[in-house]
């Protein structure tokens, strides 16, 4: 096992946890592939989304708006707003990802929820870098293989019979949990939910989602549950 020996001992647990996360995300990608194709995207378009967009929440969001009959502009708006959080992650990862411009541009593509979480779990810069790249590369691989499998499956089944239209709210429920830990997070989520349903009959499909973004203004006032600890 020369490969095993060439990996430093303190890095091995990082690589195995990156692989575990990646396998789970790969199965998750299968569900994206299925619902994307069911929403009217081709297999090629579905794979292109995972290869070049590579941020799950935005991909699901765009496909969900299209499935409901929304315009390209409204699908794009919501998905881009969700993608904006990767910019915030990028700020916090920038010290970890110092290096040549080419390396930074490649690293940027891997800046998502999971890589940020795994890298931030370590204090040591060297381990942070290992965690980021191990998670980024393995997750990218599994995300794209899973997407392709899902897209091919989605082409051959009726999604409604298997309850796959419920995959959207189910996936979003799992994704929202970490964001409900603060009081402002819960307020913003509730505002968004009410806005989306209450405005649906009056605005074109997809637009209520954008209006829901005004929920972020709860952040103007400091969160009691956060300020107490700082």
């Amino acid at each position: 096992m020369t490969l095993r020996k060439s990996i430093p001992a303190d890095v091995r647990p990082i690589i195995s946890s990156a692989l575990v996360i990646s396998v789970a995300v790969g199965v998750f990608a299968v569900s994206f592939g299925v619902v994307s194709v069911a929403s009217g995207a081709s297999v090629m378009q579905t794979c292109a989304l995972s290869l070049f967009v590579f941020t799950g929440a935005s991909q699901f969001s765009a496909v969900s708006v299209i499935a409901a009959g929304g315009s390209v502009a409204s699908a794009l708006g919501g998905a881009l707003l969700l993608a904006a959080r990767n910019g915030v992650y990028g700020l916090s990862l920038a010290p970890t990802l110092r290096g040549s411009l080419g390396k930074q541009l490649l690293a940027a593509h891997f800046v998502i929820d999971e890589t940020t979480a795994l890298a931030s779990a370590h204090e040591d810069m060297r381990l942070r870098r290992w965690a980021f790249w191990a998670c980024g590369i393995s997750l990218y691989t599994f995300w794209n293989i899973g997407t392709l499998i899902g897209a091919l499956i989605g082409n051959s089944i009726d999604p409604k019979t298997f309850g796959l239209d419920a995959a959207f709210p189910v996936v979003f429920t799992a994704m929202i949990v970490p964001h409900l830990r603060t009081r402002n997070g819960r307020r913003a989520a509730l505002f968004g939910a009410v806005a989306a349903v209450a405005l649906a009959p009056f605005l074109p499909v997809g637009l209520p989602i954008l209006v829901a973004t005004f929920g972020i203004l709860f952040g103007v006032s400091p969160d009691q549950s956060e300020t107490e600890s700082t």
Partner: protein
Amino acid sequence: MSWWLVILLAFGAYGSKVLGVVVLGERQLSPVLQRCLVLIPAALLGALIAKDTFTTVQNFSIDARLAGLIVAIGATWKKVPLVLVIALGVGATALVRALA
């Protein structure tokens, strides 16, 4: 689906990643702006959950998807792994639809 959506989303999503890592780098954002930006996923995901459960195109509607949402909330609450949450939620919807 339009290829424009795929292309524009790819550029936009990569653009915000590059903006954070390369362009802004190690600069500090104002605390108010930071507090607002971290709330984007909460507001949008809350809206998406409600839209995908309670509306069909522009109409308010309650159907088998609600069963999936309830099961998903319960499973998430119990800290069930993500893959199982999806399977249970989707399965509950399919079951309710088949029985109805």
